[in-house]
């Protein structure tokens, strides 16, 4: 890629969201808005290498999009444009559209961006469609980049995005910010989409390291955008806090050879303390808004328990157990119960942890958790601490067989070696 193309790509990444949002205010269809914005980008790719980058790239792109929008309208009207009256009506509409676009250009308002986010995360869409549209329209990622991040062929991702846009159009989803009770429900959908994007990057089940880091960064950025747009929603601050606190450990989560380093073993001097501060501030916001018991705020509070102490041994596990108890009240799930069992094991000893864990196992039964490698992994850890090495070994071996992630397999194999060593010295 030449320098000018890299420049255009960078300009596109920072301008595209507001551009699409402003056009959508006029077209009321985010699929068409995105196509018009894309057309403007294609024009820029043709013109800018010849004429140089304009002083105000955002305004330039908007003007180009306006021209495309008028062409688009004209094409549609050509088919029915038979007599003068329609022509006059068309000219009137054309002028109206031009005026509306000029106005949109003058004041790209934050509300447009918020409407764009709500529309991309609309519940009428399948979850993977919401994620893809959000990354594409608000993240400014290309279809190829999104495909790379989610390990699917570019063509598949292209179809997913196309289908999502079609669904929105066919369902006549209005380009608006929901109100009242509907707002709460829709905010939840937006938050879950952003957190899914974050987790896809953070938990790295497999694949492209660089692209996954980009997903985390993008999710945090979306969270920061959203607190500006919805400053009164406590869970928005709660989610931002959770993501900032988790992301602050990124540099410490990989060892020199790329191996995973778990929380207790991390070099805490590698944590990003400016980011921790931002996470703590966001958590404070969520609490001041009365949302301290929200799902994301509670998870953030747990993350904060870890970031607050300088050594792993100083972790206040009793407090973490209490926070997990609260989380079990608001959003009970086998995963939360599993994490709670780990905390109980740390706070009250491995036997208590094992007891809590076996309760989770009974709860999970044949559910998805039954095939979840962390269940035998945690069980193995607890058994090892209790000196029941033979059982511990069996559990860890089961966990290895259950995960496809190479890094995790390495980590678990390392654990097996520790058990062998402990067995010998016992």
């Amino acid at each position, binding site marked *: 890629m030449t320098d000018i193309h890299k*420049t255009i790509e*960078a300009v596109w990444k*920072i301008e595209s969201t507001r551009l699409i949002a402003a056009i959508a205010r006029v077209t009321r269809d985010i699929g068409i808005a995105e196509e018009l914005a894309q057309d403007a980008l294609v024009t820029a790719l043709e013109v800018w290498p010849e004429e140089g980058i304009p002083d105000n790239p955002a305004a330039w792109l908007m003007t180009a999009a306006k021209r495309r929008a008028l062409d688009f309208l004209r094409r549609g009207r050509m088919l029915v444009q038979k007599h003068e009256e329609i022509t006059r009506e068309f000219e009137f509409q054309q002028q109206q559209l031009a005026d509306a676009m000029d106005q949109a250009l003058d004041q790209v308002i934050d509300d447009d961006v918020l409407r764009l986010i709500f529309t991309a995360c609309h519940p009428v869409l399948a979850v993977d469609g919401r994620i893809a549209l959000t990354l594409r329209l608000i993240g400014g990622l290309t279809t190829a980049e999104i495909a790379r991040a989610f390990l699917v062929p570019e063509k598949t991702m292209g179809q997913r995005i196309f289908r999502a846009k079609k669904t929105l159009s066919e369902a006549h989803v209005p380009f608006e910010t929901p109100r009242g009770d509907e707002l709460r429900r829709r905010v939840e959908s937006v938050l879950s989409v952003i957190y899914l994007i974050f987790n896809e990057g953070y938990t790295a089940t497999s694949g492209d390291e660089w692209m996954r880091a*980009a997903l985390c960064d993008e999710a*945090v950025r979306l969270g920061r955008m959203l607190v*500006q747009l919805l400053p009164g929603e406590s869970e928005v601050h709660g989610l931002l806090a959770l993501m900032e606190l988790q992301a602050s450990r990124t540099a410490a989560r990989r060892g020199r050879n790329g191996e995973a380093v778990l929380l207790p073993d991390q070099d805490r001097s*590698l944590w990003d303390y400016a980011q921790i501060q931002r996470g703590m501030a966001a958590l404070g916001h969520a609490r001041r808004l009365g949302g301290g018991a929200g799902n994301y705020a509670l998870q953030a509070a747990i993350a904060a328990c870890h970031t607050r102490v300088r050594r792993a041994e100083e972790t206040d596990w009793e407090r973490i157990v209490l926070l997990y108890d609260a989380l079990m009240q608001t959003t009970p799930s086998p995963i939360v119960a599993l994490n709670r069992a780990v905390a109980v094991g740390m706070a009250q000893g491995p036997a208590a942890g094992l007891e809590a864990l076996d309760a989770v196992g009974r709860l999970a039964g044949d559910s998805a958790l039954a095939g979840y490698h962390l269940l035998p992994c945690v069980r193995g850890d607890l058994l090892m601490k209790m000196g029941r090495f033979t059982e511990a070994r069996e559990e860890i071996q089961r966990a290895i067989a259950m995960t496809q992630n190479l890094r995790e397999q390495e980590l678990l194999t390392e654990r097996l070696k520790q058990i062998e060593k402990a067995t010998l010295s016992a």
Partner: protein
Amino acid sequence: MPKYLLSGHQVDNYVPTPEDLAMIDTIHALNREMIAAGVRIFACGVSPAAQAKTLRAQPDGGVFITDGPYLETKEHLGGFWILECADMDQAVAWARKGVVACRFPVEVRELLFFPAPEESTGQ
């Protein structure tokens, strides 16, 4: 995410014209846009270079303080932004907007080193 310092350099003894005053609104608008885009970590303006103090280490181990800026130039740091961007290209794209908004030269540098608070380094 990488962080970048975007520093704006102002001519000394700068007296804003009425036109420049209108520019302040543009700069405010850019700041709002940076915050809304989730990229701005910090921004500020600094006092004129004439009010600066410069400290230099002396061969005898002492410190010598003089009034005025470190560099004898006609332009000095006027203010800066700290942004989080995916890469240098995006930081430069924001800096381009900064130059258009404030008309001063803007220098972009990636921030590389973030010392941890002292209490967390003693493992």
